[in-house]
């Protein structure tokens, strides 16, 4: 082997990186449930506020990432400040590079696969380190650190404490994702945690009970939109209109508008999820064994959408650091609106999605550029992902052959052609549909909740599928299933 390879760099770090053992024997159904739930609980504990910041720091942080918070579980002012962004970015990066053969890796060889996965882990850690340093040096925490006046930069001590917490959580998050991926939990780590985060936040946004003091006023408001509506409900007709309007439109905390948008988007996503083409298949070995092989319209699930927003989010995060460090106004110009740093001009402005109908109309050029970028990225990804993930027409035809299956009325050679006619079209048009749906949700004011809703629902279906398959195969021995059966 000649020449320099990226993977050789990984080798040096291999002995010191913690590595989850693969299970020696098949993980039982009960164990999977226990590990999934406990991992989820630990993940949700990541919403602990960072030590060293003011109480309710989320109200003080001037937030440039408000559009991506819920998609990557980046909780403001908490341990999950970076959320799943580093892990998702590194995963997409390596797998797409390998798919395009831009890095030399022989995935057929086991030792190479080991290096490949360790490479993903290291990249994820390096990205979190870079982003964490970026957050500190761009003075992101400047306005929220305890005992700091406006305009001062944070001390080394609090910078160290903050990076210990943020990086520590990122490190453990990578390991938790690995636990899922190695088969101890259901589904993939990234999507399972993302769905969990979305589900809990959805409930919290609607019926959250905690009272939060609003910035620049002495009012207390409930976190949940519905709770807020009920609490401020009064029979005085003058007050009533105001309080109802407020619970629909408030921007510091979740509002009912977002809730309805998420709900509609979720329902439509469920609808789209059901579209599929059913190919009649039959066994070549046995007579009369007929079945159907479904090819879903969302052949690649919500991954294209997730990919498009991963690209966008990384551009915005890096862009924010560059703007803050260099003060370059051509790159981007931020304006503070209700503790959110909203882009008002510059390159980054044209690469960010408008988050209300007003913004959509005020600059049509931005709307066109940003939304066509998102749609292009997601369709491009959908087109290639079936090849990269080993589920292209050729791969499936190979599986058919191994299992002695053929499409009714087709010869072996034309199976590839038949599948090749359906799969790319299904995945690209599915990606287009679901991305447009999410974009409409964003334009109506979803603040990232619409996109997360779509990704969450599609992942939840995937995880459910795996869960049910597992419970049918070895649910008989499961104590949980048998105890549930007693209640029926």
């Amino acid at each position, binding site marked *: 082997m000649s020449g320099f390879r990226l993977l050789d760099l990984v080798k040096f770090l*291999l*002995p*010191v*990186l*913690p*590595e*989850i*053992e*693969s299970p020696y024997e098949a993980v039982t159904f009960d164990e999977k449930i226990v*590990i999934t739930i*406990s991992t989820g609980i*630990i993940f949700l*504990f*990541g919403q*602990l*506020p960072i*030590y060293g910041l003011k109480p309710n720091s989320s109200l003080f942080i001037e937030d440039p990432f408000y559009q991506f918070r819920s998609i990557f579980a980046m909780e403001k002012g908490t341990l999950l400040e970076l959320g799943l962004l580093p892990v998702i970015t*590194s*995963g*997409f990066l390596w*797998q797409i590079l*390998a*798919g395009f*053969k831009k890095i030399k890796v022989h*995935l*057929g060889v*086991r030792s190479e*696969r*080991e290096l490949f*996965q*360790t490479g*993903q*882990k290291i990249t*994820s850690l390096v990205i979190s380190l870079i982003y964490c340093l970026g957050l500190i040096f761009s003075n992101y925490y400047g306005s929220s650190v305890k005992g700091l006046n406006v305009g001062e930069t944070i001390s080394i001590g609090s910078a160290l*404490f903050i990076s210990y917490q943020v990086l*520590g*959580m990122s490190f*453990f998050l990578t*390991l*938790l*994702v*690995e*636990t899922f*991926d*190695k088969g101890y939990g259901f*589904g*993939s*780590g*990234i999507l399972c945690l993302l769905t969990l985060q979305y589900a809990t936040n959805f409930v919290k946004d609607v019926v959250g009970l905690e009272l939060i003091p609003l910035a620049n006023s002495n009012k207390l408001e409930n976190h949940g939109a519905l709770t807020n509506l009920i609490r401020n409900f009064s029979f005085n007709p003058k007050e009533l209109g105001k309080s109802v309007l407020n619970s629909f439109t408030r921007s510091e905390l979740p509002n009912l508008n977002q809730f309805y948008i998420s709900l509609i988007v979720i329902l439509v996503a469920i609808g789209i999820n059901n579209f599929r083409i059913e190919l009649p298949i039959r066994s070549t070995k046995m007579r009369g064994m007929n079945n159907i092989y479904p090819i879903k319209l*969302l*052949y*690649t*699930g919500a*991954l294209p959408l997730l990919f498009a927003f991963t690209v966008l989010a990384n551009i915005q995060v890096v862009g924010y650091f560059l703007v803050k460090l260099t003060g370059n106004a051509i790159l981007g110009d931020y304006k503070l609106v209700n503790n959110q740093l909203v882009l008002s001009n510059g390159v980054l402005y044209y690469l960010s999605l408008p988050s209300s109908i007003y913004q959509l109309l005020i600059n049509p050029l931005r709307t066109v550029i940003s939304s066509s970028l998102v749609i292009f990225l997601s369709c491009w990804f959908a087109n290639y992902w079936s090849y990269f*993930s*080993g*589920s292209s027409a050729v791969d499936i035809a190979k599986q058919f052959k191994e299992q002695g299956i053929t499409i009714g009325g087709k010869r072996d050679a034309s199976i590839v052609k038949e599948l090749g006619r359906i799969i790319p079209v299904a995945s690209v048009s599915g990606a287009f549909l679901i991305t447009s749906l999410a974009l409409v949700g964003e334009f109506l004011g979803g603040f990232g909740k619409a996109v997360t809703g779509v990704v969450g629902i*599609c*992942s939840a279906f*995937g995880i459910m599928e795996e869960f049910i398959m597992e419970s049918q195969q070895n649910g008989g021995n499961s104590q949980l299933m048998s105890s549930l059966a007693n209640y029926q």
Partner: protein
Amino acid sequence: MSQAPGGLRSAAKRKNTADKKASASQPLSTRSAGAGGSSATMMKLFTDEAQGLRIDPLIVLFLAVGFIFSVIVLHVFAKLTGRFSS
């Protein structure tokens, strides 16, 4: 020296096509290599057990709880010292 049938040029051609075939048949992902990994709808990063520092998932869970506990302890200390000093 025995000459390749069809001359040297055709031997080179043959080698080229063989190389192309070999690189075309190389798996593009861990799943197509038959080792699990990202499927069409599920994104997975970690598939094989590497030679590094192997640990049990339960230990990871306990370490993660320990980390979170350390942050809680920081908060508690901050509360306590804040109450005594000011």
